[in-house]
């Protein structure tokens, strides 16, 4: 039997929980809802006072992104968004591919061999997670100008190694270390060389971990803003740098910018669904599982 007092307390408790949940949900989700609404508004609706929730939706902003032009205006300075999107895909895939190719043997060595300098090397790699980008981008800018890497995909892929290589090595190492040593020893007794151990034991068993690493690495490249801001040009800007091109000295193209942020965010939201359980692990380089 419940006493009236506890029933009252229970009700208060439920109300507080419901309010807190609602607050958390609004705080998290409302910005996405509002930007989605803004991206479907005409310029007049965007500037309406007070802000309006009821309007005739239009796909003009998205059309302007795809075509790049809105009723013939701003054609000379229009951001070329389809190209930015393609650049993001090319550079992110290239950077992850290079990091995984170099990272698999390195992670294997760090996870399974004992040799002088191992821990130092692992630590140096980790410390790249905390480096201020500006200390690297200034000399890279000077070198890139000199050697023709400025405003090229290859240059960006190389610069992105600062983001993806340490991440890839640490993540793969943490996945490789989860494979029981006994399996590896058994394979060695069966006559497998180190290459056999890597190819027949480590890689197949850690395939899900490699997939997670690839997806998260791709997402970190997609998020990159500061390296391409300095090292890319109009032909090689990714979506992150492309999206701020809607702010010019004369005006801000709010609607198109909202559409651009949606387009830049959607691949991330879809990919993050695939790696939900590993996002915290990825963001902490494997420190928190």
């Amino acid at each position: 039997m419940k006493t009236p007092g506890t029933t009252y307390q229970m009700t208060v408790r439920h109300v507080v929980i419901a309010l807190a949940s609602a607050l958390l949900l609004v705080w998290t989700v409302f910005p996405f809802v509002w930007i989605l609404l803004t991206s479907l508004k005409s310029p007049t609706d965007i500037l309406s006072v007070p802000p309006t929730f009821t309007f005739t939706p239009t796909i003009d902003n998205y059309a302007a992104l795809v075509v790049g032009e809105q009723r013939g205006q701003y054609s000379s300075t229009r951001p070329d968004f389809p190209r930015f999107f393609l650049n993001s895909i090319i550079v992110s895939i290239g950077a992850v591919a290079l990091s995984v190719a170099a990272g698999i043997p390195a992670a294997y060595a760090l996870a399974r061999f004992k040799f002088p300098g191992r821990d130092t090397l692992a630590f140096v790699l980790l410390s790249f997670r905390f480096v201020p980008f500006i200390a690297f981008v200034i000399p890279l800018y000077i070198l890139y100008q000199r050697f023709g890497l400025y405003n090229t995909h290859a240059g960006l892929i190389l610069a992105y190694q600062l983001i993806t290589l340490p991440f890839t090595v640490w993540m793969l190492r943490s996945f490789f270390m989860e494979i029981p040593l006994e399996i590896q020893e058994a394979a060695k007794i069966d006559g497998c060389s180190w290459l056999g151990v890597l190819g027949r034991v480590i890689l197949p068993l850690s395939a899900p971990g490699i997939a997670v690493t690839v997806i998260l690495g791709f997402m970190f490249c997609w998020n990159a803003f500061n390296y391409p801001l300095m090292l890319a040009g109009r032909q090689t800007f990714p979506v992150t740098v492309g999206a701020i091109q809607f702010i010019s000295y004369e005006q801000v193209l709010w609607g198109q910018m909202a559409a651009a942020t949606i387009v830049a965010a959607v691949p991330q939201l879809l990919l993050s669904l695939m790696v939900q359980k590993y996002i915290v692990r990825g963001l902490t380089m494997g420190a928190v599982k």
Partner: protein
Amino acid sequence: MTNRWRRHWRRGTFLPYLLLAPAVVLLAGMIYPFGLGVYYSLTSYWLQYPNRFRFVWFDNYVDLLEEPLFVRALEFTLGFTVVAVVLQVGLGLAVALFLHARIPGRAAIRALMLMPLMIPPVITALMWKIMMASTNAGILNYALSFLGIGPINWFGSTQGAIVSVLVIDTWGNLPFVALILLGGLQALPTEPYEAARVDGAGPIAMLRYVTLPLLSPFIVLAVTFRAMDSLRIFDVIYATTTGGPNDATTNLQIMAYQYSFQWYQMGKGMAQAIVLLLLVVMVSYLLMRLWNRASESVQ
């Protein structure tokens, strides 16, 4: 001699180094420009005036001490980091404790909280830039008007700009802290709680004397990651205030960016970048010691 090398080869002494070679080459390709940058920081490198290039020893660093903007940028960098970390870890802890209390719809809220976390920070900034329009068309000012606040000139006033950057950074990173701490809470052993219950501890005493001490390694970890990222915050500031108004939101990274990519004084910009790097190294060293102590006390 050749036999010895062959023996080493057969035993696989070189194997790990061979496996590491590609990664180390790439890594060296990153460290080389940095070394070059350290050298530039000792020169008067000015991109537009190549013939003024001279080796000036530590002049760029000494000049910083007399540069009023540097002092303010250093203050803002440190102040912002302290406030952002306290705010985000405090709120993150509250959210983690809330979600840990088996509230209905926890899984859904947890999944939705990943959304701000994984979109590009610069996109986060642009989303809030739209919502923080300082006219009455801005949704945030409109919402606040119901509470009798505003309208606030978000990016145009000194205090407004600082608050804006804080709010935007918090929106993007609160889920990170909350999820780390929620993971920590879910990994805590149950015995200490039972012991405390037998001793008649109330919920506040439980939190103070059981949960927080056990959670401290995770809290330090969250503080470390957030502090390191806050010291270097760039994307959000660049996309919203670009350091303004009146340099109110100029941190060391923005300042180094302005020196090197707006005024092309690469030597000075690089010197500022190295000061920031040293600051990051110092703070990370302190936090690492704190982490060692926190994880030892738990074991």
